[in-house]
């Protein structure tokens, strides 16, 4: 069952976590993904993905930072791990390579 690759949505989430730096948790990741991808995403999907990424060792997390708006509940803050960074890099490289292999297309024809 352990599939070490990255799904498309997983990649988006991982990227969002990177962008957010110290402020990555459920809601912020959700809105970041929505902002960039332009599609609407359910909170549950984000959470599931975050946990899956953590299980795969791409993310680590800790609890912290409560606010009144959250009814005084703390949030789980996610951070990318070394392996996570590598994985992102790998998938980026794979894509890059594949793009380069596409024969040059003539936009006008």
């Amino acid at each position: 069952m352990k599939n070490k690759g990255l799904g498309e949505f997983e990649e988006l989430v991982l990227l969002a976590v990177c962008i957010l730096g110290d402020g990555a948790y459920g809601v912020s990741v959700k809105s970041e993904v929505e902002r960039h991808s332009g599609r609407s995403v359910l909170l549950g999907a984000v959470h599931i993905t975050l946990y899956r990424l953590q299980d795969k060792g791409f993310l680590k997390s800790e609890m912290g930072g409560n606010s009144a708006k959250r009814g005084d509940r703390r949030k789980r803050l996610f951070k990318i791990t070394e392996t996570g960074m590598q994985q992102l890099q790998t998938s980026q490289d794979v894509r890059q390579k594949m793009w380069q292999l596409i024969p040059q297309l003539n936009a006008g024809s």
Partner: protein
Amino acid sequence: MSSSKKHQAPRLAKWLAHKLIKETYIEELFGDLQEMFEDRISTKGKSYALLMYWLDTFHLLIGFSSIGIFKTQNNNTIMIKNMFKIAWRNAIRQRQFTVLNLLGLSIGMATCLLIGLYVYDEISYDQFHAKGDRIYRINQPDIWGNWDKESASTGPNVALALKEDIPDFEELTRIRSLRGLVMKYEEEGRRTISFEEDLNFAVDENFFDVFSFNFIQGSPETALIEPKSMVMTVETAERYFGYEDPIGKSIDVKHYDGTWHPYMVSGVLDNVPDRSHIQFDMLVPMNSHRKQMESDDWKWIWTAFSTYGLVQEGTDIEALTKKIQAVPPKWAPPTTERIFNQTFDEFTAGNPWTLFLQPLEGIYFSERPPFHRFGPTGNPQVVGIFGVIGILILLLSVINFMNLSTARSANRSKEVGIRKVLGSGKKSLVIQFIFESVLYVVISTIFALGLIELLLPWFNTFTNKNLVLLTFLMQPAIILFVLSFIVLVGVLAGSYPALYLSSAKPIETLKGKLSSGFKSKGIRNGLVVLQFTISISLIICAYFVQKQISYSSKLDVGYVKDNILQIHNIEQIGFDSEVLKTKLESNPAFTHVGKSFGVPPNIWSGDRYKTDDPESEVVYISNVRTDEDYINLLGLEFIAGRNFDLHRSNDKYGIILNEEAVKMLGWKSKDKSPIGKKLLIASGDEDDFEVIGVVKDFNFRSVKRKIEPLMIIHHLNDRVWDYGSGISFLSMRLNPEGVSNSEDLQRVIEEVKSAISDIDSSIPFEYSFMDQDFESTFRTEQRMGVVMNFFTAMAMVIACLGLFGLAAFSAEQRIKELGIRKVLGAKAYQLVFLFTSEFTKLIAVSVLIASPLAYYFTDLWLEDFAYKAPIEIWVFVVAAIGALSLAIVTIAYQSLRAAHRNPVDTLKDE
């Protein structure tokens, strides 16, 4: 910090998630949910936020549910997944049936649970007292009139005598209502806060040893020891003192004799729970009125008290009841002798002065006695009617569900055949069918809960309750009920197709030989008849309930009750009220102004009277003290004698009777005119009243009751014992020409208000209109009417859903038959007729059964009313035609579709 939390997320969703999601995830997930909820409220509005909250919660549930069936992969879960898959495919294939099935059952369950919620609330009063199982109220007969009637009121000495004689009582405590006292709190240098308090009771100092009310400040042991101390609820304390500490502050209370006394606040209680039959705002110790309480003369007949006893643990209540019967004959005689000059036996006229022990939990909901003065009483009739309707509606929807499940399973015979050929065992087929039907019931239940959540605010306003779904659902009994309902209905509805289809031979089913079976058709038809019988009866009954309510509110009460403005608290003004009256009389907005002690429909005082004939029987006659103008204001019609005339010196000692009183006193039969006859108070007072007039009967109480005997006494008659005391009113009949719109009315009311505050500004200004007072006596019935209409509509919707489903099913089954008929030359309209008549026959049978049923129940309900709206035949006819046409419309779509199908399409297979 928690005060900055602005919005409340749906509690049901939260609760559900708490149950199903692992504790470790809860904090962050709910934090996120709450945060998004707040954001959405501010950007997109509350309802969107609520909807999304639910959606997100469900989504999280699926992902994080600790049930884990979505994650682990073993043989069992694969099977369950497969069952889900099959169920889903079937649901999608017959989308129409699926929706009908779920909708019908959800509506039925929601209605039934809603009613269950109401009934549960009604029957669970007074359960918060720690010693509740040992508390009994001591009731006695209504010694003032009907000795057969039980009354919740006793004299104060019942408690004292029981304390003296019967050691089985651990405590005995009394409550007396002190209605309508005006109280004020003068803040130093600031404004005076003043209220008229109706929920103010005098209680014994051991009140809190018996009843458990929660103290916030002060202690139950000491709060009621000092005379003129006062214990109040938080809400009341806030009314007077705002957020200041109430303990030790003093409130001035105007006693009934007009003198002001300071009371010191010694304790603050939590607000009285809704479900308590004793509802108070403030309590004062009984010894605050020491003088009144110590005079011993009338202590067995001053029935203004309720007596409650706390019995020792393990007391045999039956034996105790026997034992206490000795108390009244032993202690009451001195009172009857002194007050009435009668021996005990003469006073009771042979009736036993029984003392009853009524358990606390039964008080609210008991009809025996039907009334007490400390809080709400339940209406077992309404609860009974609702309960029956709830069960009927549930029955309707369950029938529907089973009917449709059974019917549509016939279409799956091929599936079953193939499965069997492929090696499926009988057991797994049975499980599949039952699983599907249980799944449907589970989904409907969830829908139903959502539906209740939506309907509850509306339902609460109409039933005047504060019902909360969650606390109801937490009751073990309710959980058990819902679970067993799911299993029972699911298994029942699934078992027929499960057993029948799974035992069929695969070769036959694959050949298409298996019909749905004629046996089951008979049952299905019977069920349709039952459904329509129930809903048609409900419609007819609901109509008559409405009719009775409007009939009663329009009933001629014997005078014109519209346009009468009544000013309360006139007794506070004392004898200056004549000045006020003269002033108001000069106002052109009024045609009449009159004073009275009590106004219809709330005339409750009365006494026992007899004629001067020594043989005469004692009659209980209601009385009201008025002036001569009030009689003119009402426009009462004299059939003998005349109104009071103060130019005749003795007229203020005369009385005016109504016809019923004359009849009860037995005067009418012997000789023509009762004028000039004498009436005496039965308690032996030598003063007599001369009859100077007789008026036609008029309703002085709710028109639910028959007109009872009444005497009108002049308010200046200083020979009656309660001369000058008691609450009084000034009534004005508005001049319709001067007061034609609401602005005029507002202006007139302001004028009256300022006229009163010119005399004494501390008097609380309160007014009412007589027609509204009459109408409010029907409030319970009105509310019940609205709720019942709603339930009736639900029943009809469910029945129609069922009929629609069955018609669709039948259309499918008979598709070939109709096709052949068409080929052989039948016209479309003939087919429609053929198809429709099959169902209309069933409805016709239902009408025939429903009509006498509805008649019977309507008649039963109307028995409680003195004036009944006639039961008209046309209502039955209209209901019958209505039901028939509704049924025809319901199946019209199916029958038209079936009739217009091209036979080529329908006959092409085989």
